[in-house]
């Protein structure tokens, strides 16, 4: 049987091609388009964390607030492994760098050039693996808890991670409260065929695709069954423990990758970056996008980032219209507007942008489809 390419597939491929072309155009004009680039890159990174949080909260029904902690594990591992050797002493100027790290980095610096190009990706994967291992161990204990207890325990966990990273006892590794800086930007891929500007989109794309495949697999159906009714799921022979643990570990893995990318994006990190507020910001994205919708999370990550960093900036500046000084407009007003928007979504549009549906072209073009449950 010959497979016919359906219209929606063509649309999707077309949109994708347009987006890639747009990215290459941005790369060519990166000097003039700084704002668009930084918004899109941050959006891509947050899209990945939001999707991984959605996998846990939306698809498995485990209300976890530990994302920031896992992100910080990824960010610190990546940063320590990719800060250029010549800058190491400058970064750790207060306490000196741990000899083991220094030795490892010197060895790494002597590797052949083609190895050098893949080190950043190895660093990302290593950070993610460490985060996944932490999740594995912690999950053994924490996943026995139910809804709000789980939320507060994971929140506590991320605070524990943060206080370990900022403690003076680990000064030589994490640089304590000074944080790490001089982190190199995103690496190019495939010998410069994909410029460094586009790398985060590729990484996010691959990771989100993996999560989508996972959700559509039999494991994903088991996750959803657990979300709907734990007891019924268990009665159908789904191992609660195994699937919860799996969802938790995978979600942490991808959060850590996003954390590593955030380190490359921000170029400098400190323990404060990964406070509870970061988790709340991500939760906000997930809620606005719709809990239980991957495309919702991705779209809302870009929308929220663009609105926050770019479109709504004017709220923070004093504004005068026709000679009048408009009241209220000053630093911080933007975030107030944002919080109010969030409350409106939570209280009135409880489903968010997408609810539990996924984006599709038919959904966009026909109104009938919108009414389907």
């Amino acid at each position, binding site marked *: 049987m010959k497979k016919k390419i359906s219209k929606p597939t063509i649309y999707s491929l077309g949109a994708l091609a347009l987006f890639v072309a747009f990215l290459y155009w941005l790369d060519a004009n990166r000097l003039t388009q700084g704002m668009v680039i930084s918004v899109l890159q941050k959006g891509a990174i947050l899209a990945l964390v939001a999707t991984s949080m959605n996998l846990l909260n939306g698809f498995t029904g485990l209300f976890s607030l530990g994302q920031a902690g896992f992100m910080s594990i990824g960010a610190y591992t990546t940063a320590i492994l990719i800060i250029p050797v010549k800058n190491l002493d400058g970064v750790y100027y207060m306490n000196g760098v741990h000899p083991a790290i220094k030795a490892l980095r010197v060895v790494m610096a002597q590797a052949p050039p083609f190895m050098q190009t893949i080190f950043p990706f190895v660093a990302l994967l290593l950070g993610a693996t460490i985060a996944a291992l932490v999740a594995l161990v912690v999950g053994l*204990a924490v996943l026995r808890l139910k809804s709000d*207890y789980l939320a507060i*325990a994971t929140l506590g966990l991320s605070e524990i991670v943060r206080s370990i990273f900022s403690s003076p006892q680990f000064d030589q590794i994490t640089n304590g409260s000074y944080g790490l800086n001089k982190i190199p930007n995103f690496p190019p891929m495939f010998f410069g065929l994909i410029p460094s500007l586009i790398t985060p989109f590729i990484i996010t794309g691959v990771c989100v695709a993996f999560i989508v495949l996972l959700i559509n697999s039999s494991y994903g159906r088991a996750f959803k069954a657990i979300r709907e009714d734990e007891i019924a799921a268990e009665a159908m022979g789904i191992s609660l423990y195994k699937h919860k643990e799996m969802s938790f570990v995978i979600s942490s893995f991808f959060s850590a990758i996003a954390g590593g990318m955030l380190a490359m994006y921000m170029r400098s990190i400190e323990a404060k970056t990964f406070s509870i507020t970061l988790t709340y910001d991500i939760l906000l994205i997930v809620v606005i996008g719709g809990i239980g919708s991957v495309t919702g999370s991705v779209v809302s990550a870009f929308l929220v980032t663009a609105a926050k960093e770019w479109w709504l900036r004017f709220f923070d500046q004093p504004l005068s219209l026709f000679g009048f000084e408009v009241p209220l407009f000053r630093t*911080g007003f933007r975030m107030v507007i*944002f919080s109010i928007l969030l409350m409106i979504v939570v209280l009135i549009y*409880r489903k968010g942008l997408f609810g539990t549906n996924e984006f599709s072209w038919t959904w966009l073009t026909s109104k009938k489809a919108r009414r389907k449950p």
Partner: protein
Amino acid sequence: MSMTTILQHCLTGISLGGAYALIAIGYTLVYGILRLINFAHGDIFMMAGYFMIFSLASFPWPAAILITLVVTTVMGIAIERIAYKPLREAPRMSIMISAIGVSYLLQNLSTYLFTAIPRGYPEIPFLKRIFRVGDLSASFVTVLTPLLTIVLVVILMTLIGRTKTGMAMRAVSKDFETAKLMGININAIVSVTFAIGSFLAAVGSILYFTDRMSVTPFSGTLPGLKCFVAAVFGGIGNIPGAVVGGFFIGIVETLLVALGYSTFSDAFTFLLLIVMLLVKPTGLFGEKSVEKV
């Protein structure tokens, strides 16, 4: 460390613990009735700090304290009415997200209104008077905090154990639906709960910030979470448990800081939470042994 230093730290710890206990009661009461972790409670406590700063700027201290208590209580009730009441029938996750949303809103609103720069907390002269007993020295507020906490808890216990409203609160916490069928005005009871919780948070805020000198929009987050841990530690829904938990966490935290592990003092609290939830999820005083609210 000499004996005097240890005693001195214990005194500070007990004082901190008293403030924690007052906040923890707010968590425990709300959780008992709505089964909700009121993530905004820590921020209500922070807002009370700001109310005090501003009311003390234009009123004498007794009036300022009164204004702070009243405004905070009203704010607590308003938050419940606006953000939690519409979600009563919704899944538990929604109402928790709403609570996080309120916390986010209060933090951003206070950053906007009062800026993120720490604001000095005004000194109330009689609270700051220094007492000396032997080598120990303590300001009046350090001594007042635990005493006031205990007095307030006794009053609260009487209120819950002896009055009609208290009986209604106990009924609602036992079974929401049945209590409704018995003709109890659920909304009124929930409002009373939030009023009591916010009132105690305001008292705790005055005592806590008098010792700490400054308020920022984020100074409510960590104390809030710690006090929730205190409530869980003592057995959530249980008032004496919350008080014991508050004092315990306050004292251990102060001692850890004194020993030079200040960055780990927060981590300790959460470690305590995780261990407690795994070993004895019902908390120190399990639900069955003591009456729950």
